[in-house]
């Protein structure tokens, strides 16, 4: 498996987070130069240092994915430092829990802006540069099983992720003949800070303890255990490789059987 991404430059957004860090480490192990980006520049630096510690190449960049100019600036930096980005994984994302009737328009807009608009901005910017250079590449967006299920306490999040699934279809078909492969993964319940924060917030809504709230969620997963960031990173790596060149615009559920379609 070693060396599938030798010589390639990979951009990871939300790279300081749980899934983003797992993806960055995996791509670094397989030979890519990993541009670890995050809203938190210092968080990105910590992950880039871990990639380098395991013998890989990485740089860290502060990037707010809701800002198109920020994305262009970071892509310029990365291009100057390591070359054109031909692999991209969009992991930047936010979530919050509200009863449907209490969900504010501000919260709705903020979530759509980061999760959906942020994904669009990055996919388009990376693909434009790749196409201008005549290069081929692979892009994976991290959507969520929430895109395919009802989300009574996170309608905004579910809608943003369903938007990502459809965005990936459109981008996948639009870019297929340019050799730019765009797909998504839909994780289920991953052992990260986001999941812990969700259950702290849900315990406020449901009155269950935080531990009980998470335990019940895990019980409902057919595969019977919580998902690790590596479970996600393995599938992301597959979709970034030539093994997946005939897959166009798909959203692969990596969720232990929580969702289908």
């Amino acid at each position, binding site marked *: 498996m070693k060396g599938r991404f030798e010589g390639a430059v990979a951009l990871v957004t939300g790279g300081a987070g749980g899934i983003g860090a797992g993806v960055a480490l995996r791509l670094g192990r397989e030979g890519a130069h990993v541009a670890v980006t995050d809203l938190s520049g210092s968080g990105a630096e910590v992950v880039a240092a871990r990639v380098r510690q395991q013998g890989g190449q990485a740089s860290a960049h502060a990037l707010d994915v809701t800002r198109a100019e920020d994305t262009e600036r970071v892509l310029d930096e990365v291009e100057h430092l390591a070359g054109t980005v031909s692999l991209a994984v969009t992991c930047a994302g936010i979530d919050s829990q509200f009863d449907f009737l209490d969900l504010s328009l501000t919260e709705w807009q903020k979530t759509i802006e980061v999760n959906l608009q942020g994904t669009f901005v990055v996919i388009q910017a990376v693909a434009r540069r790749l196409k201008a250079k005549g290069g081929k590449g692979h892009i994976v967006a991290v959507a969520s099983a929430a895109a395919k299920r009802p989300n009574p306490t996170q309608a905004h999040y579910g809608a943003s992720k369903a938007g990502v699934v459809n965005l990936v279809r459109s981008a996948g078909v639009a870019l297929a003949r340019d050799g730019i492969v765009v797909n998504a993964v839909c994780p289920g319940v991953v052992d990260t800070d986001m999941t812990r924060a969700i259950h702290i917030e849900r315990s406020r809504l449901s009155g269950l303890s935080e531990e009980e709230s998470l335990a019940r969620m895990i019980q409902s997963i057919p595969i019977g255990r919580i998902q690790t960031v590596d479970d996600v990173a*393995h599938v992301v790596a597959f979709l970034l490789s030539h093994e997946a060149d005939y897959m166009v615009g798909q959203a692969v559920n990596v969720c232990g059987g929580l969702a289908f379609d």
Partner: protein
Amino acid sequence: MGQRFEGAVCLVTGGGGGIGSGTARLLAAEGAHVIIADLSQDRAQQVAGEIREMGFQASPHAVDVTSQESVDRLLDDSWRDVGPVNLAVTCAGIIKIQPFLDLPAADWDRTLAVNLKGTFLVIQGVARRLVQAGRKGRMVAVSSVAGRGARADVADYAASKAGVISIVRSSAMALAEHGMAVNAVCPGVVATEMTYAIQRMRSQDTGENPEEMLTRSVTGIPLGRIETPEDVAKAIAFLLSEDAGYVTGQALNVDGGLEFD
């Protein structure tokens, strides 16, 4: 890619056909001992012979997947002669073009027997033996984009392939607690004898040249080229590998962008 399947025994039904033989070659090259099982003993022997000539491990076996007895014999012989069958790929399948109003009930029964019942018998047979032996395993069924969409002139085939997606989900849920994963792939238009036969049958009805018909259907694929058995094999191999450990009950469209859900 290294040897992802070293020490594994992988049953490939329809192993004498285009997708089956392509998949068997890839799995054997990555270390598996492949059992090439097919209704046509000649083709099974030929494919197994070719794989052995390449220096890999393969055994031919005749099977009619519509018969419980025949599937049991195949599995018992394989366990005895080769070892525990812990991976399986069901590629056996048939198709016949005919107008919906003329589709005879007997043809419906035959198509459902091979494509759907045959898939069920193999999944259940492999799983029963693994559960009894306390072993884990992974299986992939070959469905089709026809299982996702409408097909006026192969209604029986489309129904059988939609059924395959369903049995994959149900068996995945049933087998998760035993550490087994079951998934499907939905290929699009693959360069195999089945596809060429379809073009011949359709051209007989319309009077069109079969090559022109094929060119026209390939033009409709967003990716712009026909699918190869290797394109399908790579996705199957991924789903059989440890990297897909958290993926179960899923049907992956590997189709150049023809279908989504």
